[in-house]
């Protein structure tokens, strides 16, 4: 807790013939982040022929998967599929080098690829053919207004026939100019159609070159006359028959595709995952260096994994390996990847920290504090036992369904579970069960405080919590800086605010007489002096320094007052719940004759209203609790500028590698 996982630097040197298996072993273990070596004495490693093949097979496999996916029977969908996603079975693969794997895939693709491709191209060509016929029908529909047999619209030996559209106002000038240019040697038919004019012009073939520029000048849009016979209307019927036939054929082909999907889809996905991982290994090679016989790699790994990796490496290379492991040096501080380490029950909150940025290696991991304060703030802002219960149930279901996957949803639902717990506690304290539903129904529930009537007390509470939260932040920053020997920064950046906050607290306590005013002043004065000194220290122009002092001071006040949202959102929840309850109370009594309609409608409004209220208020609580941490709390001490630990790790969803060690 509070400190990130201890890391160690590893340097590996071994023979080239073990490279593939060592890399695969590390990839499967997934605990080592490989870094680039810049050695001038050796050349950078590059993918060999098999790795290049892996990349190209990965693409062609994914293309086949994409095609078949559309024809695969969908398993479970909808809400149930979301809450309880199906775990895909992992198929085992015995890994004996990339060469063998590539050969296996080649022999698999040899059969599967042409089979799938032929169905795919059949479907494609059928669809394009149908599309083509449909456009022809569209054209014929236009031509049908002319009622001329289509053959007559085709050019003959001596005659050129152009069919197309021209803007209405350009039609007459076009004909005039054509007549002039061709000495009246032309014939035309025209129809008004949708603001344009459909024209068929017959002219002598030898005159075509003269007519063409004129047609272009008037932006004559040609249409391709389809290769059909007879009147357009009859031709359309023929074409439609053809389309029906093609559609039947298309359906039959799609069935074939479904059969293929059943046969190949899972296997293709399996092989694609294998190839994808090979591809990742190939991409990693450029970080390695090699000579004719040997290769070297370097990277970081958690200290606790060192013995296991050492043993594995030794086994794979039969001891023909040199491994050096050492703790990080202070110079490497900015390079060390950071892996957060927290007890299981708050591990999920690491997600929130990581979203902002991980700490540097020598800094403090705020996750444990965030885990508590985040869920508490969430609870404070939602403040309703029943709403908390609803969220807890949903989150618990999700957490159960996603436990094995250990994905984002699982982490998120864990966060929600904690938040819901605090929501319920706060709900009991404030006596809120669906807002004031019980009170309205005449049932008395014990409550320490009514958020509506005691709004000012809640506000005071919120601000006190805010002050405390900020104080924790500044103190943490102070401790970290002292530990990292940045005493001057600690004294000037964090200490003034710590003193000011202590001063404000003791002044506030002196009002009811708990402490004396002098104590408050004793904190406040040095705090303000220190603050002014730290501001004046900067290298801005004098006037700017003055302005910055003022703006920083009010920045602090603003940050503090920002915690008032704890109260505002708590009140918003209570308010919305109350509004729902008032509306329900109003319609509850309505009866039409003997039918108690009001109760039925009221129940619907009650349930719907409170579910809506839970959703919208939980969204608000989630967002604003996050904001209070990212903006106000982290602003006091946390940089989040560390480098996240990104291990070289295989992605295994449907496959499992058996490696010979």
């Amino acid at each position, binding site marked *: 807790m509070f400190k990130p996982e201890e890391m160690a630097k590893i340097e590996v040197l071994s023979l080239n013939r073990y490279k593939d298996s060592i890399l695969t072993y590390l990839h499967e273990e997934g605990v080592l982040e490989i870094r680039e070596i810049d050695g001038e004495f050796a050349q950078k490693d590059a993918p060999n022929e098999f790795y290049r093949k892996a990349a190209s097979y990965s693409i062609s496999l994914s293309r086949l998967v994409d095609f078949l996916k559309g024809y695969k029977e969908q398993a479970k969908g909808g809400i149930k599929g979301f809450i309880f996603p199906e775990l895909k079975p992992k198929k085992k693969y015995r890994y004996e080098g990339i060469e063998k794997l590539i050969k296996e895939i080649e022999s698999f693709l040899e059969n599967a690829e042409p089979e799938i491709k032929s169905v795919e191209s059949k479907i494609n060509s059928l669809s394009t053919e149908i599309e083509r016929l449909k456009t022809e029908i569209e054209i014929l529909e236009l031509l049908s207004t002319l009622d001329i047999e289509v053959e007559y619209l085709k050019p003959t030996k001596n005659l050129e026939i152009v069919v197309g559209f021209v803007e209405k106002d350009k039609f007459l000038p076009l004909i005039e100019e054509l007549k002039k240019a061709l000495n009246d040697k032309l014939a035309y038919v025209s129809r008004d159609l949708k603001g344009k004019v459909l024209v068929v012009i017959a002219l002598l073939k030898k005159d075509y070159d003269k007519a063409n*520029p004129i*047609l*272009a000048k008037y932006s004559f849009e040609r249409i391709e006359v389809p290769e059909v016979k007879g009147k357009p209307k009859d031709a359309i019927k023929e074409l439609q028959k053809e389309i029906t036939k093609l559609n039947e054929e298309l359906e039959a082909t799609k069935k074939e595709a479904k059969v293929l999907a059943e046969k190949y889809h899972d296997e293709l996905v399996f092989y694609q995952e294998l190839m994808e991982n090979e591809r990742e290994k190939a991409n990693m090679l450029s970080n390695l260096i090699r000579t004719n016989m040997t290769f070297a790699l370097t990277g970081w790994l958690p200290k606790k994994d060192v013995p296991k990796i050492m043993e594995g490496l030794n086994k794979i290379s039969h001891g023909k390996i040199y491994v050096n492991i050492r703790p990080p040096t202070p110079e490497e501080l900015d390079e060390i990847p950071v892996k957060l380490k927290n007890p299981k029950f708050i591990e999920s909150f690491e997600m929130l920290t990581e979203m902002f940025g991980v700490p540097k290696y020598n800094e403090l991991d705020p996750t444990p504090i965030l885990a508590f304060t985040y869920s508490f703030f969430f609870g404070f802002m939602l403040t309703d036992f029943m709403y908390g219960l609803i969220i807890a149930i949903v989150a618990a279901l999700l957490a159960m369904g996603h436990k094995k996957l250990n994905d984002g949803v699982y982490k998120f639902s864990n966060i929600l579970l904690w938040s819901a717990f605090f929501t319920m506690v706060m709900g009991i304290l404030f006596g809120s069960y669906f807002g004031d539903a019980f009170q309205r129904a005449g049932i008395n529930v014990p409550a320490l405080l009514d958020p509506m009537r005691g709004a000012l007390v809640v506000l005071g509470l919120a601000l006190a919590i805010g002050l405390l939260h900020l104080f924790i932040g500044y103190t943490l920053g102070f401790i970290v800086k002292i530990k990292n020997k940045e005493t001057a920064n600690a004294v000037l950046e964090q200490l003034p605010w710590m003193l000011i906050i202590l001063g404000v607290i003791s002044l506030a306590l002196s009002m009811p007489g708990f402490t004396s005013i002098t104590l408050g002043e004793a904190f406040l004065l040095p705090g303000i002096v220190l603050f002014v000194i730290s501001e004046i220290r900067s290298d801005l122009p004098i006037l700017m320094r003055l302005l910055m002092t003022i703006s920083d001071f009010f920045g602090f006040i603003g940050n503090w007052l920002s915690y008032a949202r704890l109260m505002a959102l708590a009140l918003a929840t209570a308010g919305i719940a109350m509004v729902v309850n008032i509306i329900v109370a109003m319609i509850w009594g309505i009866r039409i004759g003997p039918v108690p309609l009001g109760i039925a409608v009221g129940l619907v409004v009650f349930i719907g209203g409170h579910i809506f209220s839970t959703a919208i208020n939980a969204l608000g609580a989630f967002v604003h609790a996050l904001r209070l941490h990212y903006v106000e709390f982290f602003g006091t001490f946390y940089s989040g500028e560390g480098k996240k630990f990104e291990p070289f790790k295989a992605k295994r969803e449907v496959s499992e590698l058996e490696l010979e060690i």
Partner: protein
Amino acid sequence: MREVEVSTITAILDTSLAVIFTWVAYKTGQILWKYTPYSYPNARIRAMEARFFTEQKFNELAESKTLNNFVMNLEDTDYKPYLTALPVLNSENIDRALDKALADIYGLLLKILPKRTRGFFKLLLEEWDIRNISSAVKAKLRGEVARDYINEIGTMVEKVKAIAEAKSFEEILVILEGTEYEEAYQKLLLKEIAPEEFETELYKNHYLKLSKYAASRKDEERIILEEFVSLKIDKINLSTILRGKAHGLGAEKLRNSLIPGGKIKRKSLETLANMEDVEMVLAELDSTEYSGIIREYREEIVEDISAFERAFDRYILQRMAELTRFYPLSIAVPLSYILQKESEIRKLKAIAKLIEDGVKPEIIKKAVGELP
């Protein structure tokens, strides 16, 4: 006494209400007018940006070896519908299909963008007309097949095609009759201007239109559009001067080809036109905002002026991308998108052409990497 107080209170309340509400209504209306129209298009464009090809994708495409593979590699992209229906696979057909894809993007933008800035994209589309007309005419003057030099995109594709197929220069005049390009072409036919001047003339008119349009907008729209237009004008002026200097042309000749507008002042341009050679022009440019481009590509530019144009295009792209970060709900987003899309299509065309010519993947990758 009490009566007075009551009426004073109500008077104060009423006046402050009136003042506050007028102001609030005005401000709210202003904000809404400014941002709402960009909400839908810009989010949609951002989502489309997510599908731009990465460098890795271009590398994969460069590795295609055959046009067949190239098209297959594009099957999981937006270009699929344009490419699958091609009867014969050659770079010419692919070019045309890609032009169609780009034209459709323009069509989509023209449909979803707010009415008040739509016109600018129409003007950008007109630039394709100018590019087409001037390259077709120039090709014809050189006696080459004009068809190879045109792109099937713009506001008058049919006319451009007819120009490319025209048998005589008079025919082209007939086609251009009634368009805004007629006058310049007539001058060219009457030998009043040289072919290069014809092109300049077209661009001059076009950029004048662009500048006018940009100046007629308000606030950030104006800032963005003016920035874009002046960058374009600077690019064309500078490359005219550099090319002129590379061919040893005098200041007199260059002066007529310069297009008014742009960030570089007319006077500075004339100074540049008076310089001895390319090196000196570049040295002079070092004090402008383009010094970054000049410094990075100095050697290449001295060797080949088109390196300057490529670098400048990249600079415009980058500048517009910067503006999208400043103004996320403005015309900068569609503008930057269309520039990136044009760049993507340019690269795809180049890859297709190079694959057809049987060029090795490594060389394709390098050539494409240099494109803006």
